[in-house]
């Protein structure tokens, strides 16, 4: 018998605030987290802005491990995890640790270790390199492992590095782990730190906007790289009710698909993305008319936003025009593997707050993007069902649906 799974906590590390409450307030106010890049040399690029998390100090979030023994993505993940447990009213020491697990998504793992390794290798100084070039610490799995070791959670542990859809893939995994009984508590989300390789790569793809990210706007110029993390606490509905925990939302279902078309270009008719949405709706026992809000992948590139609009119409039919859809990447930039985790947190919290975030920097509508993108101002409305969409390199599509717990 499959168990119902609810979200009882959310933690966010972002360029517009640490912790659910500050993040949410700034998000609703339309604050931008984009600023001049400080963590790497951008002098050889034509642009110098990014969504860095400034002033983050890991120490306060750690109780067992030394944050100096891990990379920035793990530090973000631990911080977001600690916030999420606090938010859920859970003390990790009182949790049944062997049935508590962690599932995280990431794009780059801990890229700073690889950067140091590469700089030393090129300079011929590897023999003098210290732990900063330790490639075992670079690997993606260290993020979920570090969170588990810090919290003392000995249950299932996985990292799913499905690039820009990774957070959704990890949340889907955790949803099934709790639903099937493999775990009684899961911390699930995504984390990524600012890194040289994706910054350079997206720049070379011509996908980076020089100043402002304006998703769905006619004059959009691209995405802006960012960083951050979000972790959700998932548990069975019955457990949450028994302990009187506040519930943000129930996870109703998810859909994952692959374009099997091209590594970096989405299917020209949005076929794969639409299949993910349709299958998420079917699994949730819902129709397109039930969806109150869609959190867009909305990177701000010419191609993504046009094809995503096509895909939503393909999956939703006429209902596409009635479901508000916004992109918080207009404020945070693209936080890579963390993006869909942060957006999932937004989808869960929106249900409790009955508010949805805006697409900022929206000035001129694009005839090819003609949906309701919630321009420039947060909106109060009855939010019963939310859908979080994310698409990735490799053609991996994902859609997760959250719904209000009635009564």
């Amino acid at each position, binding site marked *: 018998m499959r168990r119902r799974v609810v979200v009882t906590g959310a933690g966010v590390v972002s360029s517009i605030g640490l912790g659910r409450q500050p993040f949410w307030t700034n998000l609703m106010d339309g604050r931008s987290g984009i600023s001049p890049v400080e963590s790497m040399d951008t002098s*050889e690029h034509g642009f110098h802005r990014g969504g860095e998390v400034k002033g983050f100090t890991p120490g306060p979030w750690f109780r067992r491990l030394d944050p100096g023994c891990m990379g920035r993505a793990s530090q973000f993940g631990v911080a977001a995890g600690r916030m999420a447990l606090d938010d859920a009213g859970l003390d990790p020491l009182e949790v049944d640790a*062997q049935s508590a697990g*962690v599932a995280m998504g*990431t794009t780059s*793992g801990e890229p700073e270790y*690889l950067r140091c*390794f*590469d*700089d030393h*290798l*090129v300079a011929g100084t*590897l023999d003098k390199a210290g732990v900063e*070039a*330790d*490639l*075992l610490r*670079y*690997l*993606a799995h*260290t993020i979920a*492992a570090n969170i*588990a*070791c810090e919290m*003392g*959670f*000995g*249950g*299932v*542990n*996985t*990292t*799913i*590095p*499905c*690039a820009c859809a990774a957070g959704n*893939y990890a949340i889907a995994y955790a949803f*099934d782990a709790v639903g*099937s009984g*493999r775990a009684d508590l899961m911390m699930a989300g995504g984390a990524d730190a600012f890194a*040289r*390789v994706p910054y*350079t*790569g*997206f720049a*070379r*793809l011509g996908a980076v906007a020089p100043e402002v990210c304006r998703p769905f706007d006619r004059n959009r110029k691209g995405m802006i790289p960012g960083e951050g993390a979000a972790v959700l606490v998932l548990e069975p509905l019955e457990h949450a009710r028994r302990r009187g925990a506040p519930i943000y939302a129930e996870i109703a279902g998810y859909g*994952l*698909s*692959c*374009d*099997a078309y*091209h*590594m*970096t270009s989405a299917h020209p008719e949005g076929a794969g993305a639409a*299949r993910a949405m349709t299958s998420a709706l079917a*699994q949730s026992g819902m129709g397109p008319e039930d969806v109150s809000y869609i959190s867009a992948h909305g990177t701000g590139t010419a191609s993504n936003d046009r094809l995503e609009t096509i895909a939503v119409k393909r999956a939703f039919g006429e209902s596409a025009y009635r479901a508000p859809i916004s992109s918080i990447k207009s404020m945070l930039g693209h936080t890579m593997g963390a993006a869909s985790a942060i957006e999932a947190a937004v989808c869960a919290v929106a249900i409790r707050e009955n508010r949805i975030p805006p697409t900022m920097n929206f000035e001129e509508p694009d005839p090819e993007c003609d949906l309701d993108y919630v321009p420039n101002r947060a909106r109060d409305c009855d939010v019963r069902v939310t859908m979080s969409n994310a698409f990735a*390199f*490799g*053609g*991996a599509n994902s859609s997760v649906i959250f719904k209000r717990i009635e009564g």
Partner: protein
Amino acid sequence: MDRVAITGMGVVSSLGDSHRDVHAALCQGRSGLRPVTQFASTGAPCRLAGPVADFDEKKYLPGRNLRPLDRLARLATSAVKLALADTGWTPELLRSNEAGLALGTMFGAAHTVGEFDRGTVINGPGSASPLDFANTVLNAAAGQAAIWHGLTGINSTITTGITAGLDAIGYATDLIRSGRATVVVAGGAEEFSLETVHAFERAGLLCGSHGGEPLPVPFHARRNGIAPGEGAAFVILEDLDRALAGGRPVLAEIRGHAGTMDTSGAKDGKLAMEAIARSIKLALRDAGCGPDDIDCLSASANGSVATDGYEACAAACALGGRAAHLPVTAVKSMLGDTLGASGVMQLIDLVESMRQGTLPGIPNLDEVDAGFPLPMAGPESRELNARIGLVNSVGAHGSSCSLVVALRT
């Protein structure tokens, strides 16, 4: 709950590219390990390794442009091809079933990422190729294999360290059990690269890192570290009833699996052992069987000084009296540790062992510690009368995965 069948197996390894040939080689005690010196100039003297020496992807992937695929993607896409060909899956059948893909890997695209990064350091960021950038995401190999074979279902990459491949099998098994997918190609792939060698060498985990003759012999009293391997291995998993209805041969059935984490990060021997024992017990429970139902064990043991010992003790703890009579193999003795692919290679060869009635030995295992709790582990291959097997996969950082596989009766 739906039952899950294996209806195809494909492997590309240092001992060959057919699961039958690889099994024959393992039973003869042939080793894919050889001295390697290719990374010595970068300061990492890897002494023994099991690369896929004469890998020729064109043999498996003819007729199309291979330039967009890096080595990891070529290994993975080739092994997927072999698994599909094993039981005659056609592109049409795959598409109509929305076949999914679950790929486990430890280092993933690390070498491609490193090359891309070093290129921009040496030649400036303007020199970087957008085509190469596409392969720097850690899920690139899964994306490339899906494009090549038209796999339009769920496409997941699992990175849980050494256990990634077996974890991917467990992940796919659950997708089929819950009805979320009907067919999933699941497995693992790992490239032998300078990044791998440097990572393990710095940690002192390579055989001979601390001096002396390299001895990557699982369970050996004087074992002194691992020999990294290379390759890819995939199985086709599908709903058992659909497989039978479709007339496809059921090679074996996945009965159960489980994964756990040692929260000391493999630093505390007692906690490490408990976590491994827990994954074995949970896998047995998931499979609905007890220790006495297990006929054979494919161990994760790879010559590591610490984890081989933890695993042996954990198996004895979880299996009780059965451990003393349990036939045991450890194929990393000959394949090296193929990391993210290793659990899947173990699974495929254990299925082959049960089907053929022969279990590979552990060559050069001529001396074990006093009181070693798995007395049936030995250097010679043996006859085997087995129906249910246990596969263990143990990570260097504390992850653990166990899986129960059975021949169909």
